[in-house]
């Protein structure tokens, strides 16, 4: 497959960013669809690895976008995709933030929030399922499903920093696989 041009990467991620209701975690399936399924620029397993690397590093979840850019076009790609993912929506946030006091009590704001909430949750749930599936492709699928389920329960029921679950999973990964 021919890798995308910098301009194409930029435009794609601009478009993905404006669809990111619920943040970067909600658009993982859309990124996977465009980058892996439709264009075949990276494999599903590579996608899972890149996501795992962002989780092993501190920082916002949006960094997966930077790593996809890096994989496709090096450092330039990383910078371009990060700016594309954060730039246009930051401008929007800047504008809306200024008008916020006027908006904050409008019934429309409440209606939009209420309307988008279930879509967001459905998308984030979809992201979780996609990540379980892509992780499972690394082999021993059922062990991976159990590990993902255990991590979901652990982080749902405890307030411990997720870093500990990720570290434990890394050790378990080395021991089990």
């Amino acid at each position: 497959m021919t890798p995308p041009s910098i301009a194409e990467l930029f435009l794609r991620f601009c478009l993905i960013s404006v669809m990111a209701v619920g943040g970067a975690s909600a658009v993982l399936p859309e990124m996977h669809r465009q980058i892996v399924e439709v264009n075949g620029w990276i494999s599903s397993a590579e996608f899972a690895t890149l996501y795992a690397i962002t989780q092993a590093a501190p920082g916002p979840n949006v960094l997966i976008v930077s790593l996809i850019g890096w994989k496709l076009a090096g450092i330039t790609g990383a910078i371009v995709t990060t700016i594309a993912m954060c730039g246009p929506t930051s401008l929007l946030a800047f504008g809306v933030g200024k008008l916020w006091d006027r908006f904050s009590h409008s019934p429309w704001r409440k209606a939009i929030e209420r309307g988008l909430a279930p879509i967001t949750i459905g998308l984030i749930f979809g992201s979780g399922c996609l990540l379980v599936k892509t992780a499972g492709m690394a082999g021993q699928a059922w062990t991976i499903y159990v590990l993902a389920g255990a991590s979901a329960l652990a982080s749902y029921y405890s307030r411990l920093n997720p870093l500990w679950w990720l570290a434990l999973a890394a050790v378990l990964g080395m021991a089990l696989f």
Partner: protein
Amino acid sequence: MSLPATETVVPTKRQLFLGFFKTGISGFGGVLPHARRMLVDDQRWLTDRQFTELLGLGQGLPGPNIVNMSVVIGARFHGWHGSVCAVAGLMLAPLVIVLALANIYEQFADSAMLNHALTGIAAAAAGLILATSARLAVRMDRNIWSFLTLLAAFLAIVWLHLPLLTVLFVLAPISITCGWLSVRREQKEKGDS
């Protein structure tokens, strides 16, 4: 806005950068919980209530939530300079770290040990996202249209693999209308009582 529970402090641009810098490098699996601790508890730039309002704003707008919040908080104190300081503080160090990690990974990509560790991390990270969606779901309004919208979005993406743009164009107008009707009904009930 009601009186703040505690006195809030106005940060300098340098403090904005440093505060978000610290938040960025201390958050694993997402930085929102750390942002709350920094903004409300440690630095007292915002009251708890202001934080919740800004969180709603950051989540309601498209784009990375925490970046949206940093933009708005930075702008509140120092205009667009403040936004740049906050976002740069949040993003720069994690970006450098994650790229460094990715480069290190390239060097050792053949190591079975490393790949097994990453497979473990990938599984756990997937679990963290599932937990996030569960946490959001239990707080969601319990009514039939919310549940059906959630289910439709999930199936359209995971099962039908539809483009997100299509899904949003179909679902968002319907669910926002439902949201509007439920807000109206509440207002009417309030008016009656």
